[in-house]
């Protein structure tokens, strides 16, 4: 019996439909699962939320059949850096709206950052957030605060949080200022095999900065946020990871020099991983020319040279993960004087289209590497089990149409917020379905 379409259950995004996972087949779909070198066209049969068979639908099979001939099915996308703003800033986003945005962007899992009010620094809050995502084909795996209240002083009760299943800790939004505290955090989390995800910024070098310090900030007279402000912090954190043996994940790297530090660290066997956002991979600081606060992000958009370096670093695996840093803000918060506007742009509903259009279709990134950086790589950092397209495995899949051309329209977003500079951009490749937790949400054909 289909229990999905009841009043209490979250409904699929507008223009999408819910299907039963009791007996469902994707006919003639291109399956891509880089983790097991799978790339083939087949019929994918799902029964009771489990991948039953990869092969061919036999005559007389009586389940629901969806034509997959235009689609790619890959393991469900996971975004390990989002801000869902709940609790405390529900006017920007909620778990509910954020999960809708995630699903329509093709994500079956997200990791919300703990810079909420109150901060996510205890198991109770972690569990509340997880429960709010029940009924969505999207898992919510909160990242918990390193320090109580994200105040940068005392460690949160990390052991108990690990018991609740949290394996990544971050004070994201604020860097850990005191080097000794970072040392202790890495030492302590390392006992549990957990990871510190760090927004690496030396605030004494970036105080007041609103954009990349360089020729463009000089022309605009805007206070600069120099690359060195990130690089010094990454350097420090990497050295502390080496010293402690702890696991360090560098959030949203933005400069070529940061990438070099990470390359060197990996070569030296230090436990470090890194992520990059779609916007740092595709946009540069010259776009701030018109003072549009939708381009105001932290870390800031850098130079064209940095963008190219980051693309290469992602392609060669030096950068492990693509994460959006989805940072919703209400229009009246963003539509103010540039220096007063909050940092951040939303990304869940554009990430796949941006990366596919701007990196994959231009030959800068293979589709396999894109999928890996959005699926198995972030799940690994998060300490989550692998997701495989294999008979007997839970169906956790993203469906996307690599040929669909569409125009980004912020007014059609499922997110509560509209702060994106990609509004109006023509993209090729779009998420059209998510399957996870026994739920199947698929976009209607036009």
């Amino acid at each position: 019996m289909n229990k999905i379409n009841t009043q209490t259950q979250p409904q699929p995004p507008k223009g999408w439909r819910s299907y039963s996972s009791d007996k469902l087949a994707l006919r003639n779909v291109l399956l891509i699962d880089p983790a097991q070198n799978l790339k083939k066209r087949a019929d994918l049969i799902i029964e009771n939320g489990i991948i039953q068979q990869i092969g061919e639908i036999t005559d007389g099979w009586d389940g629901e059949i969806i034509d997959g001939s235009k689609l790619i099915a890959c393991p469900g996308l996971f975004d390990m850096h989002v801000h869902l703003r709940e609790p405390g800033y529900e006017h920007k986003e909620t778990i509910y709206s954020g999960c809708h945005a995630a699903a329509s962007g093709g994500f079956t899992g997200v990791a919300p950052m703990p810079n909420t009010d109150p901060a996510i620094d205890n198991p109770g809050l972690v569990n509340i957030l997880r429960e709010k995502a029940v009924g969505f084909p999207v898992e919510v795996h909160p990242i918990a605060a390193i320090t109580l209240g994200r105040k940068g002083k005392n460690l949160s009760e990390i052991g108990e949080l690990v018991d609740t299943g949290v394996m990544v800790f971050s004070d994201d939004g604020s860097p850990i200022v005191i080097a000794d505290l970072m040392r202790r955090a890495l030492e302590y989390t390392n006992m549990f095999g957990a990871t510190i995800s760090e927004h690496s910024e030396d605030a004494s070098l970036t105080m007041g900065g609103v954009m990349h310090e360089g020729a463009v900030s000089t022309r605009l007279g805007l206070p600069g946020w120099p690359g060195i402000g990130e690089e010094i912090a990454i350097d420090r954190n990497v050295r502390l990871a080496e010293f402690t043996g702890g696991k360090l994940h560098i959030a949203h790297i933005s400069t070529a020099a940061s990438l070099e530090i990470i390359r060197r660290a990996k070569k030296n066997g230090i436990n470090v991983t890194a992520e990059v956002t779609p916007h740092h991979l595709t946009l540069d600081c010259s776009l701030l020319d018109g003072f549009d606060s939708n381009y105001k992000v932290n870390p800031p958009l850098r130079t064209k040279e940095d963008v190219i370096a980051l693309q290469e670093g992602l392609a060669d695996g030096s950068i492990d993960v693509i994460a959006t840093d989805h940072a919703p803000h209400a229009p009246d918060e963003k539509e103010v004087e540039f220096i007063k506007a909050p940092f951040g742009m939303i990304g869940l509903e554009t990430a796949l289209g941006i990366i596919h259009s701007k990196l994959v279709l231009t030959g800068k990134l293979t589709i396999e590497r894109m999928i890996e950086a959005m699926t198995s790589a972030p799940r690994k950092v998060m300490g989550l089990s692998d997701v495989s397209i294999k008979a007997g495995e839970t169906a956790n899949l993203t469906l996307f149409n690599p040929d669909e051309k569409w125009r980004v329209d912020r007014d059609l977003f499922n997110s509560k917020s509209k702060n994106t500079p990609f509004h109006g951009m023509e993209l090729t490749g779009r998420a059209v379905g998510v399957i996870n937790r026994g739920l199947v949400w698929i976009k209607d054909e036009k």
Partner: protein
Amino acid sequence: MNKIRFNHLLGLEGLSSEVITEILDSAEAFLKVLSRPIPRVPSLRGVTVANLFFESSTRTRISFELAEKRLSADVVNFTASSSSMNKGETILDTARNIEAMKVDVVVIRHFAQGSPHFLADRVNAAVINAGDGSHEHPTQALLDIMTIRRKTGDLKGLKVLILGDIAHSRVARSNIYGLLTMGVNVKICGPSTLIPREIESMGIEVTHDLEEGLDWCDVVNVLRIQLERQNEGLIPSLREYQRSFGLTRNHLERVGGEKIIMHPGPMNRGVEIDSDVADGPGSVILSQVTHGVAVRMAVLYLISGREQSIE
């Protein structure tokens, strides 16, 4: 006249030499008006100008107001202390209110870079930037260029030294844009902590040696140094600043030759400029103030798109 139209004056970056020349030529005509017994023309009769000053300013505000009144415009003033900004109104609401009041021209001074651009994108009124943070102050640079042109006759190939806190100066940026467009060579001089790292990408040279800069230039434009820079740790003290970068009679005598001395005001006498330089030969500081009114009349006149002649 009035062949060239522009919708807003947000900055001198990107403004062509033709437009700058037309503004300066119009300003010359208005300068004649200002020396008449009754220095008033009806050019902007029926035009409503709102002066929005979100940051305190005395001379720029008075200069604009005088220019508006000399053109017979209807003038309304909003200043930071009395405006609704202090009651928490956002700049977006301010913009909507201006729109609702059907103002023709908005003159805006704001502490935040890009605020005039923000307004220009959202109102039908013509927007004139009267200084936005450390970004641009186009009418100041226009009056500076007018002052130089009146003094030298020709701008091409001239050498202008801008002396002081370049990093925080909207006057410096607008001057750099405008002067380069007019074919003037620009060098800047100041402590390395007050000069942005990639300033040379703007097409100018940098020196930290005042006398070298003075020796090179025909004109020196001295900027105001703010006491805050000392507290921000950007300079050790005003005393040390004065020692290395304060313009004195001694410096000028050592390098010799005639220099045109400018300052946008208000001056810290005895800090960035000594009184005997500010008040001495070569100083055009008070002419700058007079030219300010004429330049602002020209900008208002050209931006309003009115066809009446000045005469």
